[in-house]
């Protein structure tokens, strides 16, 4: 039996790969409560990695897609609408399978892109890993969901604010940066916070679907499931992973709450919208 300290040094970074702790995961009767505590905690590294990068990239892409959706040019708003419909209308779980099986078909040697004099060879093999391919699917998915939220916010920007911008002679990018964008974010922020939470929760699906967990390095729920398979006792690992996710959720609410305060700093105290956690999970 390992002591708790040994479990800690052996497993707290194990999710990064077998070079960062014990080579093998604990098995069968050898599993201690501390093993579960620390190995599942180490899996959170990947949950934070997936959620963090997906939210950062998705945020900017979603702004672009929402603007395209809002534009009156059919060449922009039709494709944006189709993109949103595709990713919001189908289960993320199936999207993972679909994209993985598509990425596997890409040529092994990479794709050659001729650029006049030189030829650029793009290596496509990382796409079959969860860390790149899975992240890409998550980015596209959250882009669609957030774009729909931002689009709704764009439609409800107060007319007075736009008229005031016109009165000041603002146009084009200045008008967008100073009036439209802050207003859009302010209006969409409470629901965008929820979107960030759902996205964080859906990072649990990455390794449950097609993407392989190389060297058994997976995210928190992957390890929880591993322990339940090994011990056949769902009453410790699942509540534990749920507790970790509640902590993660509280952290997101805290961070996004700070941003919310800043976005609404010009409003009187009682008019500021409060963030409310409205879980609806599965996407």
């Amino acid at each position: 039996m390992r002591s708790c300290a040994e479990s800690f040094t052996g497993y707290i970074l194990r999710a990064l790969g077998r070079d960062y702790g014990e080579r093998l995961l604990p098995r069968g009767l050898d599993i201690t409560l501390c093993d579960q505590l620390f190995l599942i905690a180490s899996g959170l590294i990947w949950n934070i990695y997936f959620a963090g990068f997906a939210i950062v990239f998705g945020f900017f892409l979603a702004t672009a897609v929402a603007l395209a959706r809002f534009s009156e040019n059919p060449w922009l708003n039709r494709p944006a609408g189709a993109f949103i419909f595709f990713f919001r209308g189908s289960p993320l779980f199936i999207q993972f399978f679909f994209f993985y099986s598509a990425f596997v078909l890409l040529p092994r040697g990479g794709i050659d892109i001729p650029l006049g004099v030189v030829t650029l060879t793009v290596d496509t093999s990382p796409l079959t890993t969860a860390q790149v391919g899975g992240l890409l699917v998550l980015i596209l998915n959250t882009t669609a969901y957030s774009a729909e939220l931002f689009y709704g916010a764009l439609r409800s920007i107060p007319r007075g604010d736009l008229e005031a911008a016109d009165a000041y002679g603002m146009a084009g990018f200045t008008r967008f940066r100073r009036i439209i964008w802050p207003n859009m974010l302010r209006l969409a922020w409470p629901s965008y916070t929820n979107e960030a939470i759902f996205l964080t929760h859906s990072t649990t699906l990455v390794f449950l679907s097609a993407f392989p967990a190389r060297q058994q390095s997976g995210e928190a729920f992957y390890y929880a499931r591993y322990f339940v398979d090994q011990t056949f006792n769902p009453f410790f690992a699942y509540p534990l992973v749920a507790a970790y996710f509640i902590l993660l959720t509280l952290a997101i609410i805290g961070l996004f709450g700070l941003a919310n305060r800043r976005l609404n700093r010009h409003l009187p105290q009682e008019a500021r919208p409060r963030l409310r956690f409205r879980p609806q999970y599965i996407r």
Partner: protein
Amino acid sequence: MFEFCADPSALPDWQWFVCYLTSGTHLAFYRSFVVVVLLLLVVAPVALGMGLLGAMALRSHFAPVTLLGRGYVNLVRGVPDIVFFLFVPIALGQGIEWVLHQINCPDWDQPIRQGNDFIVCREAKMPPVGASAWARDVYAFGMAVVAFALVFGAFAANTLFGAMQAVPRAQTETAEAYGMTRAQAFRRIVMPQMWVYALPGLSNIWQILIKATPLLFLLGIQDVVYWARELGGAKTSLYTYPHPDWRVWYFLVLLAFYLFLTWTSERGFGWLTIRLSRGQATAEGERQRRKGLA
């Protein structure tokens, strides 16, 4: 299925495909779509019933019942998504076996949990030892239904509770002024009117339910995802129908199937909103009245 399918290797392309797509495993694949739709059709009313019970518990004036309702709704909503789907069937399965064990084998002296094994006596096994494969499938499916109904019941309870509160207060007050009891006012005034307020939320929950159905795969049920993986994988010439890796096409079909489901239900709920707004004291109902539709 067809007579010319006897030797597929010697067939022209279109006949090969006809035979391939009607092979026994493909028929099982098509049946699994029916399983998805069946799950939706079974879960929806059960979850709605759970939701109604939950919402009534939340509204109750009897403190322990209110507390129970609140506990249920908040517990399910506070625990992340699929943890619940994987936790409920296995926990419930062990719970049922434990209860049966206590009833059937009172003189069993060994502990049930021995190391990593969960051991109950032979009579307490669920599904019973020697049950047919069909019974095992039904049992697994039933577990999935319970898990889905528990989770979506909590979502629905919250929505329905909000909808009940949204029915104008003056309406129930009028009912009480006419001498109706609380139960009568609820049945005759609140229930018929609350649906139009509940509809946006219910439509949302329905869409989420549709998109949760592929998780059946994680519960070990041979659903659409299982068959798409099985059939799509590359088949060597040892198989009757050898082909390269076609998984991407199979998953494309699944995507199309789910897009079709969500799209049609969106249309359906749009129609239902208009239908339920007839004669209601809402903007849509007012518009219909002015047009002379109602």
